[in-house]
């Protein structure tokens, strides 16, 4: 018996998918006429309203990992899944309070504009572009791998083909439509996602007479009270603190998010867009609570985990349960739109780091003309898009969460400290900024590679599996021996000799197990998320090097920068 239409291309999902693709391609055609200057290509001519930019920010930020992953986590792990929902939101207020004014008032296209404002252009732009590109590439790999897996899950299309389709569409949007087309793809995605999730929640609640008491009552009846209580997800408070830092300050260092500050006409609209975005994103995460617990009750955990052990299909399965194949088809298309909107934003941000910071700022020393800039931007888009397709295929089967973790750790450790210090601390210098940026990139990626998630689970995967196998074999072996002795004991009654043999066998088993476990590959760095160390040291390096290498010009220009940060553009 076929329980679900998931994994098979269904006419409704294909129709919704085609409808979305045709619609967005139409928008790209319309936007292509409005993407001819650099300002139009990267910042949509600074014409997006606060409300629309808020939706686009939500579309840029809510990735497939949030859409499928968090509802899945709640449905399989219960309350512990909620801890993630909260963590993904708290970076937004930080963006609003700390960096919205300086970012908007000092910059033009990238956050490197802000860091380089009173420091030496070339070294800063080279360093900031490197850290931006590292952040973007990790994020992009995660999204591409997620896209391949998701599209295969939903439509039954092969992984590689799915990656190529996603890659080509994203190149098309960005190359021809620039920021304007990307913005509209993100707005449409956000509206579809928020609308679809709202309908899903309403249909779910209708099953429980619109009573949360009833819903949670069923949850505790089926899975026990502990499903609604915090469990074992946070084992080490230090690890939790470090992850919290990465999520909180990483959001404020994501190049594709920061870039959206330049698409609105003024700072008032920029603030409004952060307010709307925080509202939309928060609303979405609150909906995932109902979707997660609802699917645990209605679809049941067993079925969800039978389809995908990580629970990623909880939302689509719930949609199918409540609205049949048409609703599943709709949500599948929304999932696809979700990935496209995020990868398009990432590609655009990567292209701006490559062309604005590296080419115009470093190679041409700021002397490129308009036509040349747009041309380079388009070449950069093409290069990044093709790179993303190859990386997506190369990293097939990698853990998406690890890659996103990389991206947030690098953003929090490299981009954020330099950004904050450059606008708040008069004595910050070029050398300090460059040191801080590189320290952040190298330490965060290095420590993640040396940490348990990569060093043990990826690099020493085979050794780990071998040791686990040895232990398991030995355990089965000694279990049989003990069982045989127990049987003898039952037949011949309690004999000192047999009891001693059992005890001896047990001690031997424990010792041997310990000995075998010692061969288990160990992580060189003990934490999964290094932000606590790498972000701290990046700040420290920036401060110490700045104090050791005073830069007079940077200090003099600080007053000029200060007026601009607080009062805004147009005060020459």
């Amino acid at each position, binding site marked *: 018996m076929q329980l679900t239409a998931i994994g098979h291309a269904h006419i409704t999902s294909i129709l919704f998918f085609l409808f979305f693709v045709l619609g967005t391609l139409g928008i790209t055609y319309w936007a292509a006429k409005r993407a001819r200057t650099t300002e139009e290509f990267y910042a949509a001519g600074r014409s997006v309203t606060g409300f629309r930019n808020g939706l686009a920010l939500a579309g840029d930020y809510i990735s497939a990992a949030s859409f499928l992953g968090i509802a899945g986590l709640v449905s399989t792990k219960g309350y512990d899944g909620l801890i993630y929902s909260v963590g993904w939101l708290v970076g*937004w207020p930080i963006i609003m*309070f700390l960096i919205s004014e300086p970012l908007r008032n000092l910059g033009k296209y990238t956050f490197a504009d802000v860091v380089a404002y009173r420091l030496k252009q070339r070294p800063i732009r080279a360093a900031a572009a490197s850290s931006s590109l590292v952040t973007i590439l990790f994020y992009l790999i995660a999204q591409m791998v997620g896209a391949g897996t998701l599209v295969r899950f939903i439509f039954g299309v092969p992984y590689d083909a799915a990656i190529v389709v996603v890659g080509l569409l994203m190149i098309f949007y960005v190359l021809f439509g620039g920021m304007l087309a990307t913005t509209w793809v993100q707005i449409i995605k956000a509206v579809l996602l928020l609308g679809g999730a709202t309908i899903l929640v309403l249909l779910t609640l209708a099953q429980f007479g619109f009573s949360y008491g009833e819903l949670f009552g069923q949850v505790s009846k089926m899975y026990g009270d502990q499903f*609604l209580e915090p469990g074992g997800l946070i084992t080490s408070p230090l690890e939790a603190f470090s992850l919290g830092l990465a999520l909180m300050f990483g959001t404020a260092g994501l190049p594709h998010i920061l870039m959206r500050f330049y698409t609105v006409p003024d700072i008032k609209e920029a603030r409004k867009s952060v307010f709307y975005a925080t509202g939309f994103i928060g609303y979405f995460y609150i909906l995932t609570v109902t979707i997660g617990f609802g699917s645990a009750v209605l679809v049941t955990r067993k079925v969800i985990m039978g389809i995908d052990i990580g629970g990623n299909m909880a939302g689509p399965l719930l949609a199918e349960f409540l609205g049949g194949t048409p609703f599943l088809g709709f949500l599948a298309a929304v999932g696809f739109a979700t990935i496209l909107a995020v990868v398009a934003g990432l590609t655009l941000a990567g292209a701006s780091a490559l062309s604005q910071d590296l080419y115009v700022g470093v190679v041409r020393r700021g002397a490129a003309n308009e036509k040349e800039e747009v041309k380079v931007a388009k070449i950069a888009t093409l290069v990044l898009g093709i790179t993303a397709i190859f990386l997506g295929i190369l990293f097939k089967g990698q853990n998406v969460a690890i890659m996103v973790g990389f991206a947030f750790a690098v953003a929090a450790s490299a981009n954020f400290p330099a950004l904050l210090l450059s606008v708040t601390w008069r004595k910050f210098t070029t050398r300090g900024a460059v040191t801080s940026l590189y320290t952040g990139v190298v330490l965060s990626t290095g420590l993640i590679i040396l940490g348990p998630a990569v060093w043990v689970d990826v690099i020493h995967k085979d050794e780990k599996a071998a040791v686990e196998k040895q232990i398991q074999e030995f355990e089965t072996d000694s279990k049989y021996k003990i069982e045989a002795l127990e049987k003898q004991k039952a037949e011949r009654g309690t004999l000192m000799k047999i009891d001693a043999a059992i005890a001896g066998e047990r001690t031997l088993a424990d010792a041997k197990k310990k000995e075998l476990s010692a061969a288990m590959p160990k992580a060189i760095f003990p934490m999964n998320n290094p932000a606590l160390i790498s972000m701290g040291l990046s700040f420290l390096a920036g401060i110490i090097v700045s104090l050791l290498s005073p830069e007079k010009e940077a200090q003099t220009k600080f007053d000029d920068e200060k007026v601009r940060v607080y009062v805004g553009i147009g005060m020459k």
Partner: protein
Amino acid sequence: MSRKTKILNDADFKSLSEQKNTISLVLVVLELVLYFGFVALVAFNKPFLSAKLSGAITVGIPVAVGTILLSWVLTGVYILWANNKYDALVKKVKDKARGQ
């Protein structure tokens, strides 16, 4: 004296930048307390979050949803202040500098 130096020495500019710094700092600290307070509860005070509120609903559920809502409210507080009071002060300082 350049226009920028005039602004820098303007009493209104000084008060404006000080107000902005204070408000930003207070709100950032509130957000940090809010979120890391939640993480600390999860790590150190599970019984509190596991207490029953009504029926099967535990205290932890409204606390998690409340953390999200309060974060949003804080951004609302900032935008209310910035788009009204702060921007008015900025305009005043700008007009003064232009007029001289």
